[in-house]
């Protein structure tokens, strides 16, 4: 096995996972992964080695996935705004959290049903929100790197990230409190 093949093997799951979550298509994810590693090979001389190979290759993958999404988006309707939690007219939370499930995030095994609920909720996020959330919270890109690949401003990226986190927090909260709330 060549040194490059070893690098591919180390990073292929993360690249494929990012592409799969961004495009929601296994076929697109497989093609994006191929294009990503081919681009990486062709531009190895540009890899300065001062950043981790993983971070560099994930930025290439994000670029390929975004290009594919932009191409698709031409025919799509305008993106919806994500709503956050509801508040009373006095600005207090309308729906209080019933249980604090934050410690579960540190447990080793993730409940299979919860995993499914999170994946469904992430897939339902409007594209602009999903992109930012995946690039920042799942793939670990910096705001500057995300601004570079998306062409959006950092304040706009942070605003969408916050909205996406609120929506996903809501989905996880609904899972933990599914037996505690009425219809």
């Amino acid at each position, binding site marked *: 096995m060549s040194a*490059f*093949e070893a690098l*591919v093997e180390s990073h*292929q*799951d993360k690249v*494929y*996972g990012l592409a*799969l*979550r961004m495009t929601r298509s*296994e076929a697109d994810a*497989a093609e994006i*992964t*191929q294009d990503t*590693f*081919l681009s990486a*090979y*062709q531009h190895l001389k540009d890899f300065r080695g001062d950043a981790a190979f993983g971070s560099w290759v994930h930025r290439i993958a994000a670029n390929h996935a975004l290009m594919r999404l932009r191409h698709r988006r031409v025919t799509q309707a305008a993106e919806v705004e994500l709503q*956050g*939690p509801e*508040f009373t007219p*006095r*600005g*207090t*939370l309308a729906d*209080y*959290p019933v249980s*604090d*499930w*934050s*410690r*579960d*995030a*540190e447990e080793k095994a*993730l409940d299979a049903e*919860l*995993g499914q609920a*999170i*994946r469904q909720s*992430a897939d339902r996020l409007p594209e602009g929100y999903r992109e930012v*959330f*995946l690039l920042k*919270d*799942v793939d670990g890109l910096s705001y500057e790197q995300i601004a570079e690949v998306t062409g959006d401003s950092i304040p706009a990226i*942070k605003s969408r*990230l*916050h909205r996406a*986190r*609120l929506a*996903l*927090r809501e989905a*996880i*909260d609904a899972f933990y409190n599914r037996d505690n709330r009425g219809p």
Partner: protein
Amino acid sequence: MYTCKDSINLLLEYLEGEMSPEESRHLQEHLSGCSPCEEFLNTYRATPSLCKRALAARMPKEVSSKLTEFLRTKIKSAS
């Protein structure tokens, strides 16, 4: 004094340490007297790591084999 709405709108900036000391103090004052917001903060903070674990994917073996074959062919034809 911040409301729950003000506080929740500022959570990202708060967790990233980007608020002024005065804003941060206002928010901490609200959180210390509002247990729903304190729990909201805890769960908001825990959300990315739970999602990261749920969204991790393994490339199917067949796709991995095709990737290796694709790259070997392309690299061979380029050299």
